[in-house]
C-alpha cells in the first residue's frame, strides 16, 4: 500500500520536475548532480528532483529507478576522473566519503562539493529533506513530503503506545557487512535501535554503541526473541530456516521459533519517509496478533 502511494507521489513530483508545474527551474544544485549518499539520493527522488541527478554511488540502490544512473564507485574509494567525466554541476555528499586527495582533485578542476550532514534522527532527517528542497528549488515538494512524513510518524508512534504495558521482546538486528564478510549486530544509537525501542522491543545487543561484530557466543548470549536481518545478509541464506543455520542462531529463542524476518537496509539503517511504515512492520513482528 505504502509503495503504491509513494509511486503515485513520485509520478506527480516527477511531472513537476519535467516542467509541468512551475518553479524549480533555477536550482542552486544545477542540473548535473553527482550524489554519493544513499540517504540523500532517496530524498532527491522523494522531492522529485531526480532529473537533476546524473550519477550515484555504488550503494545507492533505492528507489530501484536510480540503478539506471551510472555509478561512480564506492563512496569511500572514489576516483576523481570518474566523477569529473560526468561533468557535474556539484558533487553532493553526506561527509562519509574518501579518499581525501580525490576530493581535493575534484575541487581543483572547479567542481564544487556540497556536504550535507546525514539525518541521524527523524528531526534532523526531515531538516535534511527541507534543505534539499531549498537546494533543488523544490521547497513546496519537500514541505509536502515532510508534513506527510511528520504526520505518519506521529500516528505510528501514537499507535505504538498500545504496546506500552506489553512484554518487551528482545530483538537482534543483524546487518551483513559485505567488506569483512561478517555479521554485525546493530547496537545502541542509530535508527535500528530507535525503531526497535519505539516498536516496544529491547535491543538484544544494546550495551555497546554502533555496530558489534557478532560471534556465535554473542548471538547465543543476546538470546533474542526476534531476529531482523537486512536484505543482503538474509538473502545469502534465502529463508528463515536456512538463516537459522548461522552459528549461534539455532540456540536463541528466535531461532527455535523461527522468528527471523527480512528488512531492506534502507528501511532500518537511516530515517526516511518510509520509516513510519517500517516501524509498523517491525511492531507487527514484535507483537503478532493472536
Amino acid at each position, binding site marked *: 500500500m505504502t509503495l503504491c502511494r509513494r509511486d503515485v507521489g513520485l509520478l506527480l513530483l516527477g511531472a513537476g520536475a519535467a516542467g509541468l508545474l512551475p518553479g524549480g527551474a533555477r536550482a542552486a544544485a544545477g542540473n548535473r548532480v553527482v550524489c554519493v549518499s544513499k540517504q540523500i539520493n532517496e530524498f532527491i527522488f522523494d522531492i522529485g528532483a531526480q532529473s537533476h541527478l546524473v*550519477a550515484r554511488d*555504488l550503494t545507492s540502490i533505492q528507489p530501484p529507478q536510480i540503478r539506471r544512473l*551510472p*555509478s*561512480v*564507485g*564506492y563512496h*569511500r*574509494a*572514489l*576516483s*576523481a*576522473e*570518474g*566523477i*569529473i*567525466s*560526468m561533468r557535474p554541476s556539484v558533487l553532493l555528499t553526506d561527509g*562519509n566519503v*574518501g*579518499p*581525501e*586527495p*580525490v576530493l*581535493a*582533485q575534484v575541487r*581543483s*578542476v*572547479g567542481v564544487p562539493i556540497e556536504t550535507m550532514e546525514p539525518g541521524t534522527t527523524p528531526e534532523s532527517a526531515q531538516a535534511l529533506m527541507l534543505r534539499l528542497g531549498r537546494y533543488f528549488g523544490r521547497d513546496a515538494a519537500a514541505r509536502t513530503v515532510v508534513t506527510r512524513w511528520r504526520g505518519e510518524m506521529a500516528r505510528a508512534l501514537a499507535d505504538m503506545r498500545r504496546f506500552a504495558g506489553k512484554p518487551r521482546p528482545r530483538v537482534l538486528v543483524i546487518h551483513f*557487512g559485505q*567488506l*569483512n564478510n561478517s555479521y*554485525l549486530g546493530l547496537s545502541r544509537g542509530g535508527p535500528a535501535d530507535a525503531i526497535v525501542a519505539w516498536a516496544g522491543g529491547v535491543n538484544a545487543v544494546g550495551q555497546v554503541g*554502533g*555496530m558489534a*561484530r557478532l560471534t556465535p557466543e554473542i548471538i547465543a548470549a543476546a538470546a533474542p526473541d526476534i531476529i531482523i536481518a537486512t536484505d543482503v545478509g538474509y538473502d545469502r541464506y534465502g529463508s528463515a530456516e536456512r538463516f537459522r543455520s548461522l552459528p549461534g542462531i539455532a540456540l536463541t529463542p528466535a531461532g527455535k521459533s523461527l522468528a527471523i524476518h527480512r528488512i531492506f537496509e534502507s528501511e532500518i539503517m537511516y530515517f526516511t519517509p518510509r520509516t513510519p511504515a517500517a516501524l509498523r512492520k517491525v511492531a507487527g513482528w514484535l507483537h503478532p496478533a493472536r
Partner: protein
Amino acid sequence: MRGLAWSRVQLLLAAALLLAVLAALCTGAFFFPPAQVLRFAGQSLGLVAEGEDTFERNVFLMLRLPRVLLCGLTGATLGLSGALMQGLFRNPIVEPGLAGTSSGAALGASIVLVFGGEATAITAPLGAAAVPAMAFAGGLAATMLVYRIASVFGKTDVLALLLAGIAVNAACNAGTGFLSYIARDPQARSITFWNLGTFTTANWPGTALVAAIFLPCLLIVLRQGKALNALMLGEDDAAYLGLDPDRLVFRLLVLNTLIVSVATAMVGVIAFVGLIVPHMVRLLRSSDHRFLLPASALIGATLMELVDVLARLVIRPAELPVGIITALIGAPLFLYILLLHRRRLAG
C-alpha cells in the same frame, strides 16, 4: 626474441612502454584522442595557441598525466625491485614485499586511517599527506627491523633475512588485522582499499617525489648488473672476484627499501608485479642482470600502465583497485609465458 641482441630487445620493450603510456594517456573515464593529447602537450609548451577545451586540459594535466607517470614509475619500481631482490637473495620466489616494506607501510597507513591524522603529533600537521607519510615511516621501520634481526645471525645470511622478513610481515599483518577489526565500518573499508592499491590519488607533488627518489636509484642500480651477476655465484665466490658482498648487499637493500617504501606510500600495496616481472624477463631472454634489471623496470612499467587502463575502463565511470587486476591478469600471463618457455625447451 631469443635471436635478438640485448639492445634490440631493450628498444622493443621501450617502444612497448611508450605505446602503453600513450594508451593510458588517451583512455579512461575521459577519452582524449591522441591528437588532443598532442595539442595539450603543445599548449603546455607554449607551441600551440590555447583552445576552447580548458576544462579537458585541466583534467588531463592535473589528473591524467600525473597518474600515468606515477603508474609507470610504480611499475618500474616494483619490477626493478623484484629483479634486485631475487638477485640479492638468489631466490626466485622473493618479491619486494618480503623484506617487510609493504606490510610495514600498510600498518603505518592503517594507523592513520583508523585513528585519523590527529592521532599522532607528527602526522597532525600533514593533513592528507599523513597516510603516505606514515606508510613510508612504517615501511622503512619494518624493513630496518628485518635487517636488524637478520644481522644478529651474521650480516649476509640471506636465509636469516628471509625468515626475519616472514616474522616481521606476520607481526605487521597482525597489527593491520587488529586495526581493521576494531575499526568502524568506513575506516575498515579504507584499509581494505588501501591494501588493494590504487592510482586514483595521484597528484603532481607525489609523482615528483617518487620520480626524484626512483630515477637516481635506478641509475645506481643499473650499474651494479655485473656485480649482481658475480653475487649469483655465491658470496664467497663473489669475494674472490674482488667484490665486497656485504657492502654490495647492504647498499642495494637500502636503495631497494627507499624506492619501494616511497612508491608503496603513494599508491598502496600492489602485489604480484614484483614477483612475476623478473621471471617474464628471464623467460623472454636472459637472467644476466645487465639485461634483467633494465628490462624488468621496462616491463614492470608497461604491465602497470595496461593494468591501470583496465582498472579505469572495466566499470567506467567508477574504477577498480589495480591490485585486483594485477593478480587477475598477471597470473594467467605468467603461466602463458611459462608454458611457452616449456614448449620451446621441449621442441
